[in-house]
């Protein structure tokens, strides 16, 4: 097994992203959390640097890199502002769906704007009937006189009010065996009959607005259909596994690093009994555990992404990375708060936000329970 080693270009990318994040995102990280608003201007600035289209080929206006580079970007942003990273992570879901399933015409129409960050993307699958229960979706798409008419309600949709282009799944009918069939549609903000509904008030990953998307006789042409009419469920599941779970895993790695660094900083600053608490063995043990959680999550995450990029079938590895990293981020944030004593619960320090953000990474892309089922399913098969 070779060591996990990034290329020179990847190391340069990490350095470049870090510089951007420290100058542009870190100063507003607290405000994004408090206001729960997407800083669109910073997103667009990020877009001009290629973050929004990192894995999009250059012919469609992207940077032409891959999922590893995307994970580096998400990790570096989440080190200071996981809520902001969540906006980018979700944007990439919409981008990937169009990139993987779009016709040449659709790709030419949507990807340049999405890859350059001029437009924000999203993916809407979950409904009140459930998220992981893809087959339970009620939203319908009827084909009438050469046009699709969509009706229904999507919920818990990230970027619901900020996305300009959202890929929406809907039931298009039944397959040959009588099971429900789904399609995916590219919907642009402002299309009549398509509008954001209520906004949720999340306690974590704030800034990435989450809410309802309402479809009321929303009528679109045939060109809005993404992929084959019965392909929507597969599209949703594949996109969520490939881009969603790996993205949440990378975000968690960033949170883990934030926890590790905050803990170290505090341990060196805080004087008790005349010396920094870093000299106390009890504190050293906590720091060691933070380090191990970070290292392990990092290895699992980049390993799973590397496998995915090599084309391997690695749903279990991705699920394992997502399960471990998100749970580790929660543990590590809690541990860091503990070692900080009373200061840990003060909003002067970002660690409370890290804990809330870490908690919010768990349901996104499939809960820890679902991840374990995926892992067990593959292991027992």
């Amino acid at each position: 097994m070779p060591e996990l080693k990034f290329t020179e270009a990847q190391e340069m990318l990490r350095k470049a992203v870090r510089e951007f994040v420290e100058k542009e995102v870190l100063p507003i990280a607290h405000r994004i959390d408090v206001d729960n608003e997407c800083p669109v201007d910073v997103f667009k600035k990020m877009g001009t640097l290629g973050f929004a289209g990192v894995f999009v080929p250059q012919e469609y206006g992207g940077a032409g890199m891959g999922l590893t580079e995307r994970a580096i970007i998400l990790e570096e942003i989440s080190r200071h502002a996981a809520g902001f990273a969540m906006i980018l992570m979700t944007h990439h879901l919409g981008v990937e769906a169009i990139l993987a399933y779009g016709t040449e015409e659709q790709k030419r129409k949507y990807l340049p704007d999405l890859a350059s960050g001029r437009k924000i993307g999203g993916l809407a699958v979950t409904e009140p009937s459930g998220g992981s229960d893809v087959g339970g979706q009620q939203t319908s798409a009827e084909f009438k006189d050469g046009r699709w008419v969509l009706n229904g309600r999507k919920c818990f949709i990230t970027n619901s009010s900020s996305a300009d282009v959202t890929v929406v799944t809907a039931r298009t009918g039944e397959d040959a065996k009588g099971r429900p069939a789904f399609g995916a549609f590219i919907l642009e903000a402002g299309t009549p009959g398509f509008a954001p509904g209520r906004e949720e008030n999340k306690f974590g990953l704030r800034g990435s607005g989450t809410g309802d998307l309402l479809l009321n006789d929303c009528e679109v042409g045939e060109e809005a259909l993404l992929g084959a009419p019965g392909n929507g469920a597969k599209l949703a599941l594949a996109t969520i596994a490939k881009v969603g779970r790996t993205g949440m895993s990378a975000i968690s790695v960033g949170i883990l690093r934030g926890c590790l660094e905050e803990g170290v900083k505090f341990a060196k600053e805080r004087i008790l009994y005349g010396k920094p608490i870093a000299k106390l063995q009890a504190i050293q043990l906590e720091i060691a555990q933070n380090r191990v959680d970070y290292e392990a999550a990092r290895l699992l995450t980049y390993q799973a992404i590397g496998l995915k990029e090599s084309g391997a079938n690695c749903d279990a590895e991705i699920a394992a990375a997502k399960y471990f990293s998100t749970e580790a981020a929660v543990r590590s944030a809690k541990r860091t708060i503990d070692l900080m004593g009373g200061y840990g619960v003060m909003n002067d320090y970002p660690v409370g936000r890290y804990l809330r953000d870490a908690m919010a990474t768990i349901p996104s892309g499939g809960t820890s329970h679902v991840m374990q089922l995926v892992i067990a399913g593959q292991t027992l098969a």
Partner: protein
Amino acid sequence: MAEKRLAIWVVVEQNQGKLAPVSIEVLGQAVRLVEAASALSGEVAVVLLGDQVEDLAEELSAYGVDQVYWVDDPRLKHYQNDSYAAVLQRLVEREKPDILLFGATGAGEELAPTLAARLSTGLAAHCTGLDINADGQLVMKVPAFGGRVLGEIFCPSTSPQMASIKPGTFTVTERRVGRGEIVREDASSLLFDEDIRLEIMDVVQFEPSGLPLEKADVVIAGGYGMGSKKNWGLLEQLAAELQGAVGCTRPALDEGWTAGEHTMIGTSGKTVRPKVYLGCGISGAAHHVAGIKDSGVIINVNRDALAPAHAYSDYCVTDDAKKVVEALLEEIRRTKNEDDSG
């Protein structure tokens, strides 16, 4: 046997008919070197270039110098690299001084290396110490890595030995009794129109408001740890209460909190030596510390117990700088009231 000669020249700087303070500081060092190297027959000369600057030549002749080389010409009204370097090169090649000293101002940092390149000789930048060793060689002590390291520099095989000195590095010495000879040079043999490639269009200088940092008995310096422009206002209040001046670090300057670059302290800014220096939210990077190390009492307030600043302090407080400054303001105002009523 003829005595060994040691001729030290100081290239002085004048702007709009006023001497730059650093020129007097450098001149003080030249006089000190000659006095210290008593085994040598030393002499100090200054070189003054300008337009109608006779009064400056007179003024300089009273600083314990042996000669004032004075070149007066309308083309030398403002410092300009080509014209000044051409005149100096011809003078140096004619008189062959052993040592050439400059103030490391904006102009000096251009003129000194230009001349060194033309004369193919060595130049040491921003010297913090100058001595003559037993061999009659100039030993120049220069900072590197923002003052973290000091190194000795020699210029053993080429002449003159050249050095520049940053403003504020040395304190001004007393004006000495005596009168040097004023040698008025003929500009027409030292400067030709074809020497000049760039034309000066405009020279703009402003007087910074308030007490200059280098003259203040109390310097309140703020760093990135002050957190905001609003908190920065507290430092200004504190300086007002203590009749001091506010200085800053590069990160605080970059945040736009400060009065401007002329308040920056450190290797790329001012050198200060107040009676009391109070650093607030400053980590104590080498390039800042180099600018404050000669202060009377050094106090630092910083949340990070391991900040390098603490090691360079007489007193340190491990706490939020804003909180401590607020408490200090309150305490000073309270004691002032007590004094008034008592």
